[in-house]
């Protein structure tokens, strides 16, 4: 069974290569802890921008044509804009995921249950997103669309990010570097 095409393998390799981009910043800095905290904020920022943009776009797209300024012309231009917005979502989420991954590896000594839960939820979302983007199998595509779009995963992710920031803040790790 052929799941991915050759160009898809190339795209996956590029996405995996993104993992090494944030670690370059770590190599040049002897204050590794500060870099790690910055990477964490970078991951949160990328994730927020990537997901909010897609959610807002989908909300506008679902609005009735009559309510849109410009009517059917705007509706048509929104349809053509979907692919760039989706690419932006994928790109920013990939950068955010790998920044978060590097942040996690750098601060692995401080691993707790919330951080581990956050890493698991992020990985599941990322894997389902990759499968959704690159698979051509109908069943697998439908399955990954269901997993990727579940409200419970989004709610869990937001809650865990907030709790992770609050608990780390409490430990004084971030406070020390601000």
């Amino acid at each position: 069974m052929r799941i991915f095409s050759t160009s898809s393998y190339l795209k996956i390799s590029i996405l995996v290569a993104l993992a090494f981009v944030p670690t370059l910043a770590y190599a040049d800095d002897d204050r590794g802890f500060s870099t790690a905290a910055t990477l964490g904020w970078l991951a949160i920022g990328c994730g927020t921008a990537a997901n909010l943009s897609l959610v807002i776009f989908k909300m506008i797209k679902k609005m009735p044509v009559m309510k849109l300024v410009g009517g059917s012309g705007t509706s048509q231009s929104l349809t053509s804009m979907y692919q760039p917005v989706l690419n932006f979502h994928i790109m920013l989420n990939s950068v955010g995921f790998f920044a978060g991954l590097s942040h996690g590896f750098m601060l692995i000594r401080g691993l707790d249950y919330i951080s581990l839960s956050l890493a698991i939820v992020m990985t599941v979302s990322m894997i389902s997103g990759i499968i959704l983007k690159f698979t051509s199998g109908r069943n697998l595509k439908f399955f990954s669309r269901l997993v990727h779009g579940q409200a419970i995963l989004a709610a869990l992710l937001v809650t865990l990010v907030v709790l992770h920031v609050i608990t780390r803040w409490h430990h004084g790790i971030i406070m020390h570097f601000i």
Partner: protein
Amino acid sequence: MKIYSYILMAFVILATSAPTLALAQYENEGGDQGSTMILIIFSLTLYVTISAILGVVGYSVWKVYKIRRKAAKMRAA
């Protein structure tokens, strides 16, 4: 609204409230003391996360299976 929507909503509330409960307990007990109670509640976060993910995956598999079965029935008819 179907019954599984209510179950899913209850699951979302449980999944999001369990970590918040852990944090409340953590703040309540000072945070610096290594209480086993806090550890147990914090570990609950991980179990809730894993069960939520398994639930989502199971629900998605069941949905795909249901659609496949429906399509097979329509083809046979």
